[in-house]
């Protein structure tokens, strides 16, 4: 498997009266170039899971794999792995501490011990990747930017690692509608052009569901669903019972289907919905 887990279990503070099993026997795999969504209520284990995937946490039992390596094995050189797996936490701009955007983005490659010339190349590359003109921004103070721009810089700060996998936790938190659109457009393009594998934890499915090819659903530490988006989001009543909601567009389509209309089940955004309803009409008119 490219990245995944095998019977992963994680208990916080084992052996104490406060012990809490955050992950219970979780097994899944994501293929290279895949775009997976991890959904679940707060406390379902999402954050714990993603922290295992880049080796931040060690399993209580079970294993985590990346590119053929068992992350738990001694000598697995976590630093090398962190080069390849980028993890972007929620509100990543809260991590800023540098005086210039350059230094902020250079932090990660410098930590890897790269030569300064290489670092510089990567910083500029990362900035351009997120759609910000390097010359305009590298000397500015990170705190001076708008919310959307800060988010992009924070993303660049991880992209400078040139990761093969990018894991993001609520990447759109705090962004307005257009900011979200820009972000997901960027992620989609990285996924296509660079075959970057994506794993995204989010509650805001409307803009991202159409990009995904796999959805994992966690409930109380257990993996309760794993499959294609249309299969998972089709299970409306189950999701609602778990306190989750499918993308709004999917709900509208499902309602139409319930009323007898022959609509496809893999529609998650407005443009696709529009096209589908139009297709229905043309079909009928014929």
């Amino acid at each position, binding site marked *: 498997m490219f990245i995944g887990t095998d019977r992963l279990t994680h208990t916080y503070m084992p052996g104490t009266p406060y012990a809490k099993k955050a992950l219970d026997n979780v097994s899944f795999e994501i293929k290279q170039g895949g775009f997976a969504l991890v959904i679940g*209520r*707060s*406390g379902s284990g999402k954050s714990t899971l993603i922290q295992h995937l880049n080796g931040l946490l060690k399993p209580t039992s079970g294993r985590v794999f990346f590119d053929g390596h068992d992350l738990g094995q001694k000598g697995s050189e976590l630093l090398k792995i962190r080069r390849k797996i980028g993890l972007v936490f929620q509100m990543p701009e809260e991590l800023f501490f540098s005086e210039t955007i350059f230094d902020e983005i250079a932090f990660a490659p410098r930590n890897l011990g790269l030569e300064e010339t290489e670092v510089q190349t990567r910083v500029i590359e990362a900035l351009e990747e997120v759609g910000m003109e390097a010359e305009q921004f590298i000397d500015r103070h990170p705190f001076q930017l708008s*919310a959307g721009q800060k988010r992009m810089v924070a993303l660049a700060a991880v992209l400078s690692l040139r990761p093969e996998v990018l894991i993001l936790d609520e990447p759109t*938190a*705090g962004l*307005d*509608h*257009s900011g979200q659109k820009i972000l997901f457009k960027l992620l989609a393009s990285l996924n296509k052009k660079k075959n970057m594998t994506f794993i995204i934890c989010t*509650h805001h499915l*409307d803009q991202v569901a159409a990009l995904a090819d796999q959805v994992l659903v966690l409930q109380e530490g257990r993996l309760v669903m794993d499959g294609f988006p249309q299969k998972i989001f089709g299970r409306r009543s189950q999701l609602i019972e778990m*306190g*989750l*909601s499918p993308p*709004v*567009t999917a*709900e*509208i389509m499902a*309602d*139409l289907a319930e*009323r*007898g*209309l022959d609509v496809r089940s893999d529609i998650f955004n*407005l*443009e696709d*919905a*529009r096209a589908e*309803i*139009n297709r*229905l*009409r043309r079909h*009928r*008119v014929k």
Partner: protein
Amino acid sequence: MVNRSEIIIEAKDLAYQYTGEEEASSPALSGVNISVHRGEYIALIGPNGSGKTTLLKLFNALLVPTNGEVRVEGISTFDEENILSIRRHCGMIFQNPDNQLVATTVEEDIAFGLENLTLPSAEIQKRVGQVSSVLGLQDLLQQAPHMLSGGEKQRVAIAGVLAMQPGCILMDEPTAMLDPAGRNDVLQTVQHLNSEQGLAVVHVTHFPEEAVMADRVVVLEDGRLVAQGSPKEILGNTSLLHGLGLQSTAAVELASLLRQDGFDLPEGIITNRELVNSICSLEQTD
């Protein structure tokens, strides 16, 4: 139960200018005239920087106008002697659930406002008891804030405000940092307080779905009140919203797209159900 024609907050020709900051060049608010009636639920929407938060702060005298006047239950917010009264009449809930909880236990936090009002101990204990049962917090009274979920924290904040027996509650994007379950929690709570207890609500939000339940939607742009009306009127006006960089509900957006494609959908659709019904009746008549 409540006399809905009575005005509790009135702003006349309201203007506010921030001093000593770069934004001093353009006023944060200008020429705003607005009244909040008893029992009314107002949704306040607008792009970032349009002055929504500023307006709220002018309502409870956290800021005083640089021009014009705000009166709360007839008391002018310039009246420094009666600020405590004003803040009792107009409670406020903030976006970050953590950064508004002051005490080490839920119980003490709910009591905080009452202690500021110098109520006698017995009265404080009585009100804390009442309010915690209304909001379902009885079992959490001895808990420390950091052990609560986001939704619970916001409910505690609401309890703290409710205990002061206000006529109006001001909410500044109270669900922005919550997961869907927490969001639901807070929205249902506030709706209940509005419909059952006649509490007026001014709710600043970025989520168009949250504006659907309001009595009136008020739109700000660049410090000016540019539109107000029923949710149908405002949310249905996609050109207005798009012009401000805002989105409407999925149902409205989809209906608008379909109308462009020649679907003869009636005006005034803002919910999923209305959309589905309309599409289905169209399909039947085709």
